[in-house]
């Protein structure tokens, strides 16, 4: 029976490995990015400067605004909880009620992430920071369009694999709860930037489609507030606003934010329906004004929209970052940027801004940012293609490895062949010691297979002994050990010693190693703790942790456990 808990989002060991990886990667980035920037700067000096460009104000707003949002998202990726938390707390919940095909696709991506969580988390850091800096630095010409294209591509990946189409299948799907997903808005903005050369458009009609599309999107968002399955028009305890704010207030966050959420959770019980009416009116009227290209109305209405969005961002979305594992600032800042930019586009009717010569720092900096994107992209590609799993998931489950010192308590028990085996007789081998129940139905069989895989990973070494001590006093005969070994197909594994003995002998070993064994009722198996001990060549304790496994040895948790066992044995050799 397992003592396995779930994946812990914050594991000091995983965090330490994450910080270490980021440090190495930063050093590499400084080297390669600096080199790229230097080369571009030198080339720039030898060639004619690019012509002055007149970037339209709406494009400038989107480029700088979404560049800043990418940088903020990249910085949020630095959170210690991100390596484990992104797949478990952010990605998987978005497809909890999604169609099978989408749940399968996103689940596969989340599994891949969890196999190499540090690679994935650090990769996203560099991609998002790189995209943000590139958008800000590259003002015009093909570098700017390339940055926007890369931004659109990454946003599309995040939209599908990271958020399950913006939580489309997680009820209630509504504007105030983040629909259609921040990544969808990043994608839209990036496409708009990429489609513009940084000059006033040759065909202004095309440029008008953006505000119209945004207007239609806002009307659709108004519809989500009306038709959502959430109780936006309900008051009292049924109010969706109150429920959401109440949930937010429970999250760990700065005290003032929690106080604001608690206040809003209480206040919205009475004014929830009114609030929703206001939101629907603001969304609808802004949408209609954008479709009608009414600059005069938008000049006033946009600030009403900004005020509404800011209120939702503060009161419902908890600023996007105050609680939980936040990956971005949520949807409201992106909506605001889009509405303001569309308003600028309508006011200026596509006209360009002042014609400005490109500053000399822009392209070298954009080059360094491109290196960051490429490096992060390579790391993420590694997540997709590298086999096996790192030990990180196992560390997150077990709570970390505890180093030990001192002599390992000795024992003499009977192995599956009926021979008496003592711990001392196994010297000078490294001993991997676990406690297994031969009739355990859940995790003992899986753990035995994981140990076998770990042995194979190490090349079935003869200087390592794998010792399983029986953890069930009711099934303690060597025949039971043999039955377990035969049933698990482990008969040919010569390094395995499944040791058993009398109840007294077994209890002494359990006691010496701090393993609790208890009966849990009629029909239930023996409940036993599942520590693993690594014992060095001289019989000294080296380390211990709680074994935890997944549904099968091939699962992410299983493969991660295999890696961890192999790594600890290697350390003890």
């Amino acid at each position, binding site marked *: 029976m397992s003592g396995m808990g779930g994946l812990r989002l914050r594991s000091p060991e995983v965090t330490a490995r994450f910080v270490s990886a980021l440090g190495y990667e930063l050093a590499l980035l400084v080297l390669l990015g600096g080199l790229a920037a230097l080369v571009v700067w030198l080339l720039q000096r030898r060639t004619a400067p690019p012509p002055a460009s007149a970037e339209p104000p709406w494009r400038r707003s989107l480029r700088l605004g979404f560049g800043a949002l990418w940088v903020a998202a990249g910085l949020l990726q630095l959170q210690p909880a991100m390596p484990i938390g992104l797949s478990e707390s952010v990605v998987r919940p978005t497809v909890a009620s999604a169609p099978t095909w989408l749940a399968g696709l996103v689940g596969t991506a989340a599994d891949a992430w969890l196999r190499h969580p540090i690679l994935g988390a650090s990769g996203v850091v560099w991609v998002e920071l790189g995209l943000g800096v590139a958008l800000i630095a590259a003002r015009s010409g093909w570098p700017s369009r390339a940055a926007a294209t890369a931004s659109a591509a990454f946003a599309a990946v995040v939209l599908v694999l990271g958020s399950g189409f913006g939580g489309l299948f997680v009820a209630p799907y509504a504007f105030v709860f983040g629909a259609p997903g921040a990544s969808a808005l990043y994608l839209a903005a990036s496409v708009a930037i990429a489609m513009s050369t940084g000059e006033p458009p040759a065909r202004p009609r095309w440029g008008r489609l953006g505000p119209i599309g945004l207007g239609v999107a806002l009307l659709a968002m108004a519809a989500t507030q009306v038709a959502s399955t959430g109780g936006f028009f309900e008051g009292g305890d049924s109010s969706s606003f109150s429920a959401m704010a109440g949930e937010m207030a429970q999250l760990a966050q700065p005290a003032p934010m929690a106080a604001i959420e608690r206040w809003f959770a209480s206040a919205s019980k009475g004014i929830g329906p009114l609030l929703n009416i206001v939101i629907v009116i603001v969304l609808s009227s802004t949408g209609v004004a954008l479709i009608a290209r009414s600059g005069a109305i938008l000049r006033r209405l946009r600030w009403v929209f900004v005020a509404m969005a800011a209120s939702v961002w503060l009161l419902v979305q908890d600023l996007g970052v105050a609680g939980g594992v936040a990956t971005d600032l949520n949807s409201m800042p992106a909506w605001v940027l889009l509405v303001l930019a569309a308003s600028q586009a309508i006011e200026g009717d596509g006209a360009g801004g002042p014609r400005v010569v490109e500053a000399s720092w822009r392209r070298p900096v954009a080059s360094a940012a491109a290196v960051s994107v490429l490096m992060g992209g390579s790391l993420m590609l590694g997540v997709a293609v590298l086999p096996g799993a790192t030990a990180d998931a196992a560390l997150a489950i077990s709570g970390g490895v505890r180093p030990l010192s001192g002599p390992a308590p000795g024992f003499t028990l009977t192995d599956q062949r009926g021979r008496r085996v003592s711990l001392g007789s196994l010297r000078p081998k490294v001993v991997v010691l676990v406690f297994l129940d031969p009739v355990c139905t859940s*995790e003992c069989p899986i753990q035995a297979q994981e140990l076998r895989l770990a042995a194979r990973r190490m090349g079935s070494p003869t200087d390592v002994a794998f010792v399983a001590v029986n953890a069930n006093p009711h099934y303690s005969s060597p025949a039971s050990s043999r039955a*377990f070994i035969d049933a698990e197909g482990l008969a040919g594994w010569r390094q395995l010693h499944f040791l058993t003995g009398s109840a007294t002998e077994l209890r002494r070993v359990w006691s010496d190693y701090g393993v609790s064994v208890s009966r849990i009722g*009629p029909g239930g198996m023996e409940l036993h703790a599942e520590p693993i001990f690594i014992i060095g060549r001289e019989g000294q304790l080296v380390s211990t942790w709680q074994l935890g496994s997944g549904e099968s040895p091939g699962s992410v948790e299983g493969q991660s456990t295999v890696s961890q066992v192999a790594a600890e044995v290697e350390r003890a050799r």
Partner: protein
Amino acid sequence: MRGRVGLLVMAVAALVAQPAGAALEGGTAGSDVATAVVATGRLTSIEDRFFQTFSSTGGEWRLSTPAGVATNGGIVVAGPDAAALAVLPSFASHVTALVPMQAGRPAGRGIAAAALAAGPSSLALDASGQAVAALRGGQIVRGRLGAWRAVADLRSLARSAPGCDLASAEAVAEAGDGRLVVGGRCRRAGWSGLILQGAGGQWGGVRARGFAAGSVLMLRSEAHGAAALVASGGRDRRIAAASLGRSVRWSRPLRMRAGERVCSIAGGTLATGRTAFVVALCDGGAGRVAVLTAGPSRSRPAILAAGRAKGATAVGLGPAAGAAGDRIVRSGPLASLGISVESFAVEGRRVRPLRLSADGRRWLADGAEVVLSLPYGSSS
């Protein structure tokens, strides 16, 4: 038997999803001990559903589930007077736990053995303690508990009855004179799923005229050889009992209604020497309880009166909601059969033993309610 009255135990718990022909709930009655296997806990959750064993030696049921092993996979009662229990593997386990029993109580520590097939007749013991078992994958083994030698495998059994196209072998019993009978599932019509060993050790399939692809639901070793309860697949579904002595003698079949399935089976030997199978048929409503007997002469199936027990939330004969009282199907010949039929009303961790009244009309309390200390979630 209890005096002249054969005791048949019917544990009915229907919310448990089980494949056809693998009703793991039920019971067996021996000369001294009656044993019932009942699913308890959260019946729709394989993690929180625990099979329990109740034994009765003097008229009172007592819990006799063995300690130290999770019973989610099911429990098989084996041997005369339930001399051993086998706890079937579940989840990731491939190991069966075997527990010797004495007078309805676990006696001594258990041993682990290869995985038995998931059927109520996958282990049988003779009076000397020799065991015969059907393992997962169709291998038939024989010997002392846990120390077995192979007797046959699915391929060799299938070759012996090529017309049957044997898909599985999940039941086994002694058929007298050292011979064995294996119960499985045929893919082709006209065969029963029974593979009988001849005097020379050779195997041969047993035909079943008029049966679509047959599958064996239960086997019992009897003084006259063996007895089997067999179901016919296809549209015209029916069940019939067979006596496997020197010749095969079939009872008249019981036609199953649309939507009916076998929820639990109890087997026992009548004072006349015939074998009786009490079958609970579930259909989402009141359901039916039928008795089929097997012996040297041909018999008709009997429908017992009370379809389900009042307040039995886990009864396979219908949902608990709206049960105002016992629903009477029709008057039955319970008394004339000389048996008593018992069931267990299960509600989570509460189990109430019930007995069908002599006139077959009512379920009566049969002992005190048992409250289990179920370890919910302990096996996951």
